[in-house]
């Protein structure tokens, strides 16, 4: 059991560290680009990182990546964090969308899209979720119809990260409503400046606007806009989500919650001597520290060539639960001031996180069925043509 780098990894890390040491002054402040009014410096910085092969570390070399493994991706992420630099702006593109295009895209798509994606010259967004299809992704209603040798798309997408800055989107649409719902879907690349595409920011609980709604009204696309076979979009989307899980794991050092963060604001207060406070602190710490070591276990499996299963998602439940306990503890100890600032923001983010990327409930179903082999619930929607599912369409 060893968390140390292998000699090769140590050498790689040294190289990354040296490069960052030299170039750190070029980095904008490490606040997420999501919150920036001006993302230009973050694009420029991504381009610099890309030149140094620090973007797309796990992408094959032929597509501009470094051709390395998840351990090296994690090394890059943690060295960037250590150097106090900003991370990759377009992390969804690099972590999920690019790998999906590499897996399913045509040669033309690969040569057209991948290089500017790596450099950040062109931004990307994921256009999967819809207002009536969140947990039940296969229930999307955005329609793509064949027309004049191309496609015409109409529908609405939501929860689109970075949509306001994106040049292209990877969009899941229904191409055949007369087959069961998982079967008639196709993946498309859509230019965000195409006539008919409208991006509107979505304001969250906290007042921040990290997501968008995207309206697609009679947008015309070429025949070549499809990614992967027509009507095989469900498999493409599942691949994207699998890459998402891998990317989250490698970015562990940026996401992790350090329990000591929670102690700092309470240092010196009498409450910190009370058994009640200390037990609550321990309870949070156990959840948060476990996240890190669970991720090391998953990364080890990844290094050994295993594909991360849905159980990786269980970490989110511990994160949210620990975080909620943490916020309540701080509010109890520090009073109303703790409802704003760092931990106030965390509290509302956590409640959003609970449903983001699949609700807890869907996650628990999936794990129960795929990992433990528990029988699925009876389903009415799986084999029925989508067009016959009136109830679902009525969903708001």
């Amino acid at each position: 059991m060893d968390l140390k780098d292998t000699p090769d990894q140590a050498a790689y890390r040294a190289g990354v560290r040296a490069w960052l040491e030299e170039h750190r002054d070029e980095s904008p402040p490490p606040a997420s680009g999501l919150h920036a009014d001006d993302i230009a410096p973050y694009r420029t910085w991504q381009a610099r990182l890309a030149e140094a092969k620090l973007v797309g570390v796990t992408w094959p070399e032929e597509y501009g990546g470094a051709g390395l493994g998840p351990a090296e991706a994690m090394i890059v992420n943690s060295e960037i964090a250590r150097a106090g630099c900003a991370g990759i702006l377009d992390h969804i593109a690099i972590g999920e969308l690019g790998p999906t295009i590499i897996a399913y895209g045509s040669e033309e798509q690969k040569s057209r899209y991948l290089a500017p994606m790596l450099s950040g010259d062109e931004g990307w967004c994921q256009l999967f979720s819809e207002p009536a299809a969140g947990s039940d992704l296969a229930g999307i209603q955005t329609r793509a119809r064949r027309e004049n040798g191309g496609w015409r798309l109409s529908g609405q997408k939501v929860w689109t990260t970075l949509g306001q800055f994106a040049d292209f989107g990877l969009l899941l649409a229904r191409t055949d409503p007369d087959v069961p719902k998982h079967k008639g879907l196709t993946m498309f690349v859509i230019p965000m400046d195409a006539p008919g595409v409208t991006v509107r920011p979505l304001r969250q609980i906290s007042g921040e606007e990290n997501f968008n709604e995207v309206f697609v009204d009679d947008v015309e696309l070429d025949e070549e806009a499809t990614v992967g076979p027509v009507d095989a979009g469900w498999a493409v989307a599942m691949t994207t989500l699998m890459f998402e899980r891998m990317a989250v794991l490698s970015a562990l050092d940026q996401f992790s919650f350090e329990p000591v963060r929670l102690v700092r604001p309470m240092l010196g207060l009498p409450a910190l001597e009370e058994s009640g406070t200390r037990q609550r602190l321990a309870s949070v710490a156990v959840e948060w520290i476990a996240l890190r070591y669970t991720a090391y276990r998953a990364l080890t499996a990844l290094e050994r060539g295993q594909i991360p299963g849905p159980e990786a998602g269980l970490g989110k439940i511990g994160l949210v639960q620990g975080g909620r306990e943490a916020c309540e503890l701080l509010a109890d100890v520090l009073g109303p001031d703790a409802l704003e600032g760092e931990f106030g923001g965390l509290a509302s983010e956590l409640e959003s996180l609970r449903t983001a990327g699949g609700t807890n409930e869907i996650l628990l179903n999936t794990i129960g069925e795929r990992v433990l082999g528990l029988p699925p619930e009876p389903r009415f929607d799986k084999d029925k043509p989508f067009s016959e599912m009136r109830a679902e369409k009525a969903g708001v």
Partner: protein
Amino acid sequence: MNFELSDEQAMLREAAAGALSRIDTIAGARAALDGGELPSIWRTAGEAGWTGLLVPEEHGGAGLTVFDAMLVMEQCGRRLTGAGLLGHLGATFVLSRSELAGSLLPLLADGGRRAALVWADPADWTVEGTPSDERRAPLPELSDGRLSGSAGFQPDLAGADLLVVPYAGGGAALVEAASVSVEKVVRSDATRPLAHVRLEGAEASELGVDADVLAEAWHSGQALLAADALGVAEAVQEMATAYAKERHAFGRAIGSFQAVKHQIVEIMRHAGTARSLCYYAGLAAESRPDELALAANCARVAGEQAAAYGTRTCLAVHGGIGSTWEHDAPLYWRRAQLSRILLGGVAGAGEHVAEELIKQARQEVTTT
């Protein structure tokens, strides 16, 4: 046995619901987060007689009990409103038992003037501190008819005309709000404005009330907040239930899935616990003064638990849409987040519950 609202109480509750439904308090709550003015219910409160609920009839009030006031607070919680009422009810509770009752209460009963109480916890006779204090601050000192001291994060002080201020040594005095510094603060929930108050030798009138009255006022405040939280919990239970019937996924209404259904029933269970204990607190306020501390603090714990669980579950049931700015669910969530730490918070209420039980157990030992 009749452990339900009387007909008069049921009417009071209905009337409160009706009166509040005519003000768009919920849109107002959202706008206030962006700096808009909070819709005032003060005029309604005066007209409906809520401002005089705890004022004896001989002084122009309705002469009702804390339980009746809880029924109004429940409706305020349900509608995310009520600014001014908690403080005013607390102040009139104390003033009704004071030497100055006759001269002051008629002005307050009809809402023409607003009073507010600075809440002091009888567990250790401290008040919530301002940010420059540690969490708890000592009671203000009264000397030569002048009050000095401070208190932080007090609901309803901002906008009040008269402040009832407990002081060290076991009494309370009245000061004109104009004679002290009141700094309004809002934290997370704009529906419940707070304030820090600083008294620097403010001229004060001694009220002639003892520590027992102030302790009773504190526990009554717990009961009032419990009812408010109950209103929040039941409102979000209904909101979540309605959405779960209407929203479909996987070809079914999401409320047909056990995971969703059971969480909503769990809100109902928490709210039921809170309602039963609110009734117990009401019973104690009406006729069992020795049990008020236990009952009111139990109700507070249960109410805040119901509101906290209910509001976050309501967010979750709504999925993504529930965490958008335009949705009502986050407004309820904000209210519950702040509410659970006011007036000693749910932890302070738990302390009182434990203390009362330990007292009971000790009495058993000495009497046997």
